[in-house]
């Protein structure tokens, strides 16, 4: 199947609005075949695990690529030089950044917009908002051309934001005055407002507002989207504390404080339905499915047990649709809960672990 045909099929798949097991399977096998045929490193990876076009019968058989492999391997069906869009991880630990190549963003953008409308633009008082005035706590796409989050937020603004929507993060840092002005204006006009951005930037804004003794009561229907965790860029906050402060600072009920869970290695995002209780339940649209596995054996854990998340994102067609994350999670009714990173931060001994070693090596 040609890439153009696959893209067409995927857009139709997304447009279909739902997919049962059989439909998902059919599409997943087509995407796997495309990746197996066009991507030599992925083919080697799959073959080593004895997963070939002949042996893979279900989407669950498609071998999941560990996200660390995106750092070492070029996982792209199209030669990288033919891919105008390259999203890179922030590469905080090893200095090497994982890359996802996109020959086109047609599928990525459709995946984002269809899902975003459904999960973020719903009006609790009926219908959907077509557009909302947005404040974005993240740099622009121009400032960070390799950031999938910058692209995501730019898309949110162009497709769902009003003309007055604006960014509050630039080279000059966080524009606290600008944010205060926009938030005050929303309070005055009673027009629902949406604040979107990186979790750590939200913390920075809350700290800056607290310093000035400011808080807001945004109009009914206003909402907040945070994503990405703190990544050492702000102090760590427990989810419970984060959302209660968020709600108190902006006057937005916790059920409209929505967390988006996305990754550079995916083309689809997960959302929760607010954070009234933490940890919230995350779920995605019908073109992405998740499994919870024991990372050592690769076997699925019994439902309700903690494991590591594997995501199968059909929209990530040019790279590897099935990825093994380093996120711990548990399957629950309606989706999964994220339980932090499965990275040995809880090691008990005095033996040096990888993360510490790398940190030490960088320092010396």
């Amino acid at each position, binding site marked *: 199947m040609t890439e153009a045909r696959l893209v067409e099929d995927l857009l139709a798949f997304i447009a279909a609005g739902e997919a049962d097991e059989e439909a998902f399977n059919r599409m997943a096998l087509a995407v796997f075949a495309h990746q197996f045929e066009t991507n030599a*490193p992925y083919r*080697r*990876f799959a073959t*080593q695990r004895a997963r070939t076009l002949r042996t893979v019968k279900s989407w669950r058989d498609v071998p999941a690529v*560990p996200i*660390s*492999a995106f750092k*070492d*391997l070029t996982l792209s069906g199209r030669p990288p030089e033919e891919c105008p869009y390259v999203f890179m991880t922030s590469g905080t630990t090893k200095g090497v950044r994982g890359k996802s190549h996109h020959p086109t963003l047609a599928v990525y953008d459709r995946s984002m917009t269809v899902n975003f409308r459904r999960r973020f633009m719903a009006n609790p008082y009926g219908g959907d908002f077509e557009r909302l005035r947005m404040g974005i706590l993240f740099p622009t796409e121009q400032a960070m051309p390799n950031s999938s989050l910058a692209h995501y937020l730019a898309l949110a603004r162009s497709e769902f934001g009003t003309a007055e929507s604006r960014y509050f993060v630039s080279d000059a840092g966080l524009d606290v005055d600008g944010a205060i002005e926009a938030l005050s204006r929303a309070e005055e006009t009673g027009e629902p407002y949406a604040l979107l951005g990186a979790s750590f930037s939200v913390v920075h804004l809350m700290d800056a507002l607290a310093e000035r003794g400011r808080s807001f009561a945004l109009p009914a229907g206003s909402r907040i989207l945070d994503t990405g965790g703190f990544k050492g860029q702000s102090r760590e906050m427990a989810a419970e504390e984060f959302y209660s402060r968020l709600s108190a600072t902006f006057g937005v009920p916790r059920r409209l404080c929505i967390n988006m869970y996305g990754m550079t290695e995916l083309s689809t995002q997960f959302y929760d339905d607010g954070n009234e209780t933490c940890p919230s339940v995350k779920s995605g649209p019908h073109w992405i499915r998740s499994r919870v596995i*024991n*990372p*050592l*054996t690769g076997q699925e854990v019994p439902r309700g047990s*903690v*494991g*590591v998340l594997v995501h199968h994102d059909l929209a990530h067609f040019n790279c590897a649709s099935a990825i*093994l994350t*380093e996120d*711990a999670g548990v399957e629950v009714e309606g989706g999964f809960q994220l*339980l932090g*990173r*499965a*990275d*040995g*931060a*809880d*090691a*008990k*001994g*005095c*033996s*040096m*672990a*990888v993360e*510490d*070693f790398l940190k*030490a*090596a960088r320092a*010396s």
Partner: protein
Amino acid sequence: MERAGHLPGLSADAVDWRTLTFRRGAETLDVAVPVLSEAQIAELATRVRTNARTYLRSRTVAEIAATIDRAVARLLDRDDPWRQKAERLLPLVTGYDAEMVRLGLTGYLKTFRGPELRKFIAEDFANPAVLDDFQPMPKGGFARAFGPELLLHVWAGNVPGLPLWSLISGLLVKAGTVGKLPSAEPLFAGWFAQILAEIDPELAGCIAIVWWKGGDEAAERAWLGRADTVVAYGGNDALEAIRARVPITTRFLPYGHKISFGMVARSALDAGKAGAAARQAAYDVARYDQQGCYSPQTFFVERGGRVSPREFAGYLAHELGALGSKFPRRPLSMGEAGSVASWRNAEETKGFADPSRALLGDPAGSWAVAYTDAADGLSPCGLNRTVTVVAVDRLADAVPGLAPYRAFLQTVGIAAAPEELFALAGALGAVGATRLCALGRMTAPEAGWHHDGRFNLLDLVTMTEIEGSAERAAESFAPYTD
């Protein structure tokens, strides 16, 4: 419910207790750890300090060592109730295989028998009597070594019995002792204090074994501000946080996380010896699932022997498999399993780019050996029985690459002929390694070992000197002076 700690003079009813729950399979154990108020901390610190001043100072080192020896003897006696309790509960708390704990305890405790304690002392003091009284000094005058009146140990980790090392070192210099239990193994240190209390209640009155939640700033400050000397174990971040709270006038002795490795020379790689070397290496890897700072994470193996480095990796894999059935690995947390998996995945991925690499492991993921022909340096593995074998032309070739990690190197397990051993020792010491031992002995340092190259006892004391001038001047004031 098992009560942890040792709080001389405080009644258990007056203290708040918090429960730590440990699970292993279907078994659970609740351990109550004490949570002290600021007033109780002050009271306990004063009591320990006073008792140490009046009682410990009046005992000779030999008497103290004899008491420790009796306590250790009870823990070595498999019919003793304390020993039986340790064998029953420590596997439950730490998750380690019961037989591994049993063997490990015996091997470890043997290093604290009477004669071994004398080695501890002799390692640091040419004349141990200097701990009891003023002794003549070669330079003239007299000197006596005083331990701190209040020595605070902040312990960490889950290797059973580890706190004993510094606890005993402190007692040998007559230090009033407060130890903070590690949350991952909160029992052993308290038991030891209680055994001492059965043998010599007054001595046990000079020891408090306490607990606070790691990072509890109020409790930490209260204790740190009251100690003369602080010995602390943990990762560098944790140590940094502690150091920031230690008063500048307090001596601070940090023991951070370390990395250790092995070296196998071609002289150890003939058909008869390579198997034994691999068996010993595997034992070092498996013991306490590589949680110790002395546990090897990489083996450098020399090319040119009868058995190639690649074959040695195979031997090592075979031995790890065998040890896995004899001493199964403890159940891993999801985080630990994630570390192992991501290390394995990364090794596997590297193999796509470099076919000389190999990853040997069992499908259940209970151990793994990565092999590389490339000139890789030292690198941490995923722990919990994962290890890298790096082939080198000459062992000495591996040494320059170690230099960046000077601050983190500790034990090197070596299988090499005498001349090679001493040649390597010079090079390894120069880049920061502090302990060279035989393969198979990496996780069992000998008595009197200079932990991380430091002095167990000497680092704790201050010397009080009577200079020759004072002695001579005193003569002029003597009643018999002319």
